[in-house]
């Protein structure tokens, strides 16, 4: 099955292991990912400081227009921030004809146009609804054998549209993890915010948010936290040592992408699953024998 892939800036850098694992999973499941040509940044969560709302919409309209030039496949945006920016534009384009006309007026500056109709999908959406749990189970050759996982969705994975899962109590990642043979531990911070785009610049204020998430996962007995958002992964992982220092804690919690766990369960090796790129290494819990 063919999909457009919108990697986004993060997956080119700090979230490179997300992209690698998404590709590994796609390979195992026979999904054909076609990268949108010459895509641009979606604006992510700090767009508003330098740009206006309309400018951010224009960024996303351009990506939709670029995709449409290549065909009519659904677009997978693995990064949650990219996903909501893009899906918001896609929705508003369908619902607000005036805005749609404005967008085409703007797109015309770059000799582009967009006629609507493209669907923007999150990775979890495609995995849960297009692939399905049965097929995922079938593909598992290396079950996770009761690995204790805290399923952390964060914010923008499901909010605000709740397109494919509940905004208040999502379950798709839990189900996928269970299909891989993992044990999803009780975890009440699954949809709480990590600080997102302002974590880096507001660390004093946001460290307690990350601390609470790590704490709840630890209390629930999790060995790893699974996520599907590069921003969450980054805030929880690369700043973990900082947070420990600030809050006087000693968390040592690997933060992995759900796609990394899938790749591993589907028989890819540690490196193919890009698990070697995790800074808080999940090696000891994922490869106890190694």
């Amino acid at each position, binding site marked *: 099955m063919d999909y457009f892939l919108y990697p986004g800036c993060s997956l*080119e*850098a700090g979230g490179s292991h997300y992209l690698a694992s998404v590709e590994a999973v796609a390979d195992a499941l026979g999904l054909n990912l076609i990268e949108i040509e*010459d895509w641009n940044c979606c604006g992510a969560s700090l767009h508003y400081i*330098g740009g206006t709302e309309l400018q951010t919409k224009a*960024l996303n309209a351009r990506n939709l227009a670029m995709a449409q030039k290549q065909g009519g496949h659904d677009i997978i945006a693995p990064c949650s921030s990219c996903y909501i920016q893009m899906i918001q534009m896609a929705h508003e384009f369908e619902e607000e004809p005036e805005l749609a006309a404005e967008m085409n007026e703007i797109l015309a500056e770059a000799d582009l146009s967009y006629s609507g109709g493209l669907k923007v999908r999150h990775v979890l959406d495609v995995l849960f609804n297009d692939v399905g749990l049965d097929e995922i189970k079938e593909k598992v050759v290396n079950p996770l054998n009761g690995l204790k996982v805290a399923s952390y969705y964060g*914010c923008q994975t499901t909010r605000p549209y709740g397109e494919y899962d509940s905004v208040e109590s999502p379950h798709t990642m839990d189900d996928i993890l269970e299909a891989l043979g993992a044990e999803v531990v009780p975890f009440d911070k699954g949809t709480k915010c990590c600080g997102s785009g302002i974590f880096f610049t507001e660390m004093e204020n946001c460290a307690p948010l990350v601390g609470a998430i790590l704490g709840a996962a630890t209390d629930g007995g999790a060995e790893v936290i699974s996520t599907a958002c590069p921003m969450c992964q980054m805030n929880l992982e690369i700043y973990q*040592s900082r947070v420990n220092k600030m809050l006087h804690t000693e968390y040592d919690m690997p933060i992995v992408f759900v796609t990394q766990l899938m790749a591993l369960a589907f028989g890819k090796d540690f490196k193919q699953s890009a698990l070697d790129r995790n800074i808080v290494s999940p090696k000891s819990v994922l490869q106890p024998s190694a």
Partner: protein
Amino acid sequence: MATKAYDKSFREEVYDKVDAGEEIKLCMQCGVCGITCPLRDEMTYGPRQIWSLIRAGKRDEVMNCSDIMLCTSCYTCKVRCPRGVKVIDVMHGLAHYALQEGIVPRENTSKFGKFFWNSIYKTGRIDETEVPMRYSMRRGPIHGIFETLEMMDIGRALLSHKRMHFKLGPGIPPSKKIKGIKGLKKMLDKAEAMSPGKEA
């Protein structure tokens, strides 16, 4: 208890010039936004009360309040608002408007966000190495070196885990541009001109 008269000029300014500003008309002051905000404890007013202040015409209180740039964009308020007010969009709109008016609600985020947007405008993408580097240098090279050193462990870790491109310093080497950068710039200029409060 300062008694101050209701003044309609500021609310009209917000309706006209702030992105999504008209959304606040629909607020019924239930307070769900404030109570669900992850950073509620760090805020002076929170979204609900900011809307009240706008309606009352308290321009200084709102524009100089750092709350408007403390939004993490978690979307909880937007999802739970019974009136469907796009709380986040208004907060973003207010932050943008304050900066435009020369007010800096949160210094670090404002600076970082500016580099962030510049990267988009100049190259079409965010360079995750370039932007933090420029941000570190915001107070000059000396301060920048210290701040870079402070973040060095993280940078090194990212580099060694293939999650960051190597750079000697800002612009060395320069960030890659998308092919259609010219067209994108034209689009962004056009969009800016069409934005509320910016129409010629």
